[in-house]
């Protein structure tokens, strides 16, 4: 039997996560870093007047940490402005293409007015695939090779 998902029929609205961290463009980098940690988010959607203005990801955070930059500057100075985004009605195929072309692991989801609705994550797409593979994936033993360990950062 064949299992083929037609990703040109599957929509972003069924795969994205509405739980996202939204911050104001005037927020300090330090506040955003702390919020990302507290809320356990890999990115922050930076907004101005309720509209998406930029995105700041773990990757951007790493770069700032590596270069010991001033954390009291505003997030808009270091965010990626006008990020590549998707809409609820876009197809998963289009989203995957945008991700792999740009090397992004997260895409902001916006409505027609440019207001942020959430984030489409690579891990969300993986989970969407796995939902169709429950048969083999969820029946595997929980610990294949060795004792359980902290999962924290891996």
């Amino acid at each position: 039997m064949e299992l083929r998902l037609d990703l040109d029929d599957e929509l972003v609205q069924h795969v994205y996560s509405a739980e996202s961290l939204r911050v104001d463009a005037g927020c300090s980098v330090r506040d955003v870093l702390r919020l990302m940690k507290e809320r356990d988010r890999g990115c922050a959607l930076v907004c101005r007047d309720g509209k998406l203005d930029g995105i700041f990801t773990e990757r951007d955070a790493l770069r700032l940490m590596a270069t010991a930059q001033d954390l009291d500057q505003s997030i808009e100075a270091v965010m990626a402005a006008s990020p590549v985004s998707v809409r609820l009605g876009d197809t998963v195929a289009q989203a995957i293409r945008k991700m792999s072309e740009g090397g992004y692991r997260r895409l902001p989801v916006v409505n027609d007015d440019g207001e942020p609705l959430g984030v489409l994550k690579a891990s969300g797409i993986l989970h969407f695939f796995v939902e169709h593979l429950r048969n083999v994936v969820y029946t595997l033993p929980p610990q294949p090779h060795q004792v359980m360990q902290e999962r924290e950062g891996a």
Partner: protein
Amino acid sequence: MTICPYCDHRNIPGADVCERCAHSLTSFHPPTPTTDVERSLLRDRIRVLDPRSPIVVEPCTTVRHVLRTMVDYKIGCVLVVRDSQLLGIFSEKDALRKLNDAARELGDRPISDFMTAQPETLDLDAKIAFAVQRMDLGGYRHIPIVDESQHATGVISVRDILRYLTERMTVA
């Protein structure tokens, strides 16, 4: 000889659990693949993903140096290794959670203070289904690949898995 249905490890006759993957050999209900992609997941090994070589650092390497390395090599994680034994992994997520706004002050500290110790690993002969399960249920973004001597030989990422699945699950 009892061959484990999950990892194909050859166990001594009468063994109750697989010596390698700890799966029960007595009362298992083997997964029944019903589609081509499910069969692929239980047939193909991590090897087919062609894992990229890891960037490794010593446990005493400073936080500052590790952060630089991750930026310079454009990578999301480094493996922490001593005498070629894998001790831990340090990722972007560790940086955000454990260094955060104190990264500058912590710059001279050894990375071993902040790594995730004893990460879950897979070997090149593990079935891809395991990697998919670990990434989805475990929430891992990177999994180190080790050989029989626990030497780190590679890393696979959620993107490698997504690419594999996209190629097999989607209409061409």
